[in-house]
Each structure stands twice: as structure tokens, then as C-alpha cells.
């Protein structure tokens, strides 16, 4: 389990991460979303000890980060950081020598899955192949904690699907996975919970199904003028265009729909919202950027 509480990181006068709290239970994939500069990579750096947090606590399976944590932690950075002058097989040899849990058979299987030639130098691999090698390095020890910063960038759609399947499999085997991606479809497919960051803060977080449920929208059409919506107008976000209203129902879609019907709506629809809708609404800053 990954438990982050009150994490704050400042670079000079820039507050990169602001009082971030997040739990990723074992067996769960948490998608970390946010625009560029939202603080996702800095969060990863703080988690890994690459950057010193100003305040807050980070615990892996209840314990703070120590060198021994890395025996059960796998990390894939945003940009593959490989020894370009070393061969693929040298990278795996390095993992074998330093990670007690290295599974050579599994690494070989992954090499075949990603169609990587062990004799090739890392510097001669394509970006997608480098990402694949970084994934193999991270996954070949069956880590119980996985931190993945854009793990599928540069991979073709087939390989992206393979990566997501591997992550889902790892989570089903009990791994706690924190996955950052700009490709919302990937998060939608692999994650069971999400955290959306804006300006260093987590502005939305929770289980994906619950978020979807709570973000359903009721669309009602009235024959004439829209009647007084009562407490709905004051407690929920309401958009009105002519005789149509869209009410963001905050998890009460069914009761809001019934209320609209009672107010004389001639048509009422309950709309499910995609993760993309949820994301866009969460990061909407009124066009300030």
C-alpha cells in the first residue's frame, strides 16, 4: 500500500506539490491525472526520495522509504533513463545482481512479449523499445509497489494494451500501482481509482465507479419557461440554454430526474459522464492558461 499524507514540495517560490494526500491500497491501480506542470512528476520524485519533501509523510506498506523499499518497488520514469552504451541484456544483468527478487524467466518472457533483442544496445532502441526495456527492468522483480510515470509513452497501441494488461495482472496479484498518464483512455481501462491534480493539489480523487456515479448529469427539457428549480439551483451546478437545463447531480441523479419530472419537464435524461469529462471539469481553470 502507498500512503501519502500532507505532501508538500516547493522549488524556490513555486509550490509544486501542495498538501497532497492519497492512498493506493494493495491490489489497486490509481490513475494520476493532471495537466503538464500539475505536480505529477514531482510527486513521483518525492515518493522515490529523488526530491526532499518540505513536509508530509510517505509510507510504503506502513514503513517510510529506505533503500530496502526498492527491493519491492518498481519505477518507470517519464523518459526512459537507460545506459545507452549498455546492451539490453546488461540492464537485466544489473537487475539480477542488485534485486534479490529478479525473475529471469519472467524477464525473458517480457523480452519476447516486447520483441526486444537482448544483444542490442539501449541507445540503438527506438523510444518505444526503450520504454519497454524500462518496463521490463521494473516488472522483472514482481514488485508489490509500482510507480509508473507515463509508462506507455512511445509504445504502439498493441504494446500499450499489453502494458495495461501487465499492470492489471500485477494489481490482481496484489500490487499497489500509481500510474500517471495523459492518455485518459489508458487510465480508464487500467485504473480502479483516480486522483486528478491541479496546481500541485489533488482536486478530485476516489474510486472511478463512485466518481462516475457522483458526476452524472441530468438533462431536462421544459415546454415553456424553466420553472424555479428550488434548492437544486443553489446546491448544484446548473447550466441553462433556452428551455434546456443541465444539472450536475452530485450523486443524486435519480432524485434530481424525478424532481425535474415533477416540475413539468417534457423530457428528462440521465447522462453518464466519461473520465475525460470528469478530468476536464476538474482541471478547468476558467481559461486562465
Amino acid at each position, binding site marked *: 500500500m502507498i500512503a501519502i499524507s500532507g505532501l508538500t514540495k516547493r522549488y524556490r517560490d513555486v509550490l509544486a506539490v501542495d498538501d497532497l494526500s492519497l492512498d493506493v491500497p494493495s491490489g489497486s491501480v490509481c490513475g494520476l491525472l493532471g495537466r503538464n506542470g500539475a505536480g505529477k512528476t514531482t510527486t513521483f*520524485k518525492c515518493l522515490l526520495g529523488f526530491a*526532499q519533501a518540505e513536509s508530509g509523510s510517505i509510507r510504503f506498506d506502513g514503513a517510510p522509504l529506505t533503500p530496502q*523499499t*526498492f527491493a519491492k518497488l518498481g519505477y518507470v520514469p517519464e523518459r526512459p533513463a537507460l545506459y545507452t552504451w549498455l546492451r539490453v541484456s*546488461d540492464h537485466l544483468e544489473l537487475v539480477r545482481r542488485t534485486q534479490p527478487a529478479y525473475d529471469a524467466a519472467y524477464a525473458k518472457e517480457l523480452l519476447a512479449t516486447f520483441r526486444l533483442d537482448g544483444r542490442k544496445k539501449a541507445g540503438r532502441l527506438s523510444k518505444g523499445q526503450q520504454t519497454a526495456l524500462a518496463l521490463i527492468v521494473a516488472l522483472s522483480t514482481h514488485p508489490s509497489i509500482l510507480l509508473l510515470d507515463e509508462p506507455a509513452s512511445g509504445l504502439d497501441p498493441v504494446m500499450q494494451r499489453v502494458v495495461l494488461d501487465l499492470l492489471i495482472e500485477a494489481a490482481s496479484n496484489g500490487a499497489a500501482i500509481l500510474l500517471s498518464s495523459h492518455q485518459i483512455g489508458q487510465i480508464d481501462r487500467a485504473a480502479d481509482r483516480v486522483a486528478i491534480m491541479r496546481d500541485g493539489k489533488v482536486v478530485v480523487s476516489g474510486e472511478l465507479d463512485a466518481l462516475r456515479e457522483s458526476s452524472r448529469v441530468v438533462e431536462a427539457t421544459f415546454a415553456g419557461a424553466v420553472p424555479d428549480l428550488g434548492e437544486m439551483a443553489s446546491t448544484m451546478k446548473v447550466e441553462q440554454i433556452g428551455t434546456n437545463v443541465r444539472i450536475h447531480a452530485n450523486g443524486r441523479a435519480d432524485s434530481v430526474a424525478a424532481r425535474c419530472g415533477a416540475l413539468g419537464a417534457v423530457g428528462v435524461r440521465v447522462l453518464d459522464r466519461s473520465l475525460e469529462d470528469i478530468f476536464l471539469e476538474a482541471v478547468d481553470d476558467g481559461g486562465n492558461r
Partner: protein
Amino acid sequence: MYYVELLRARRVLMWYTIIVFGIIAIVALSTMGQHGSLGAADTIPLSDIFLGCAFGGYVVATIVSTSLVSESATVPITWTRPVSRERIAWSFIAVDVATILAGYLVMIAAVLLCIAVIGLSGYLRAGAATWELLLLGFGSAVLWYALTLAASSRLGGHGVRVATLSWLVFLVIGSVWGAPVPAPIHALLTALNYLNPIAYLGGISGATHTHTGGHPIVLSQTPRTLLAWALAAVAAFVAVRLWSTKEA
């Protein structure tokens, strides 16, 4: 983690040895058929060879001194091993020091081979403390390495620039010491030369191994050897501390 540094060192030593012996081969070929001779009383002091061959150690020291800063690009691998950063750094340093020793010995072997090819082996002479000079030559190369390592360890890159700059700095500090400058500047240059690996090799009599005067380091052979190694150790500690506590 030393595995990566072993591979790096192997590559450095391979190219270094090829180049050194390539040069020796050229020298040997150019003198083929000529039999060298010196005057009856003349000898070739082994001590001078040991001190001069420190140059080879400096070359290798310069190259491997970028080892820690080179790891900045691969921190996601280097710092995610279940080993403390300090231990990683010390394992790199251990491999690098062994590489410097190998580079130093390769240079000595190459020069001795060249002397043998020219036919001057019979003129080689070793004094009582000659072998101790190996420690001084090696120590000064390790001092070069450790100082450059410390200077670059906090950086996120540009290790090669720092290593290249080290030659300029050490050569300039050493060469301007004798210039006619005001006393305070002369004192400053003298102090700086105690951090100049090249200065440790000058001003020693090949015969007596005592300080000969007219040189910034006024120590005889044993104390200056100890001082070079002590400063190298301090610089290495500083490098490890800076590298292991930096932010990536």
C-alpha cells in the same frame, strides 16, 4: 551497482591500453635497428619513470572521475536499487581507483617495454625508496580523481567539462607559482598547490627522495605521499556526501 562501473572501467581501460601501446609500437618501429646507449656513468632512474608515468594515471583519473555525475542521467535505475546511495558511490569509487591503478601500471609497463625495445634496459636503476614512489604517483592520480569527483558530484551533468577543466586548473596553478607575483598571491598559490596533484610529483630528488627546494610543496616523500592520500580520502568523502544527498 558496481557492475555498471566495472563495464565502464573495462571500456576505458581497453581503449586506453590500445592507445598507449599503439604509441609505444610507433616509437619502437621508428627506432628499429638502432641500439640505444648512454654514457658510462649515466643511468635511467626508475623513480623518474614512476613519477612521469603518473601522467597515465591522470588521464584515466580524468576519464573515470565523471562516473558519479554520469549517473545523473540514469538515476531512476541507480537510485532504485535496494542499496544505500553511499554504498553505491563507494563501490563506484573502489572500481575507479582500481582502474586508475591499472592505467598507471599500464603506462609504466609501456614505458619499460619501450626502453627494452630500444635496448636501454641495462641502464635502469632503482634506489632504496624507489618503490615508494609508486604510492606517490598513484596517490596523486587518485587525488586528481577525488577532487574532480567532488567538484562535479552535485551537478546534473557536464562532468566531462569539469574533468577537462581540471587539467587547465592544475596546470595553471602549478605553472604560475614561480611567477613574480605579490607575496599574498604567492602564498595563496602555494596553498592552492597543495590541492594540485601535479605539484606532489615535483621537487623531489630522484636519488634521495627528499625535498629539493624551489617548489610549493615543502615536504619530503613520505609525508607528501600521506598528504596526497589523505586529501584524496577527504575529497572522496565530500563527493559521496554531495552526490548521495543531491536532488534528482
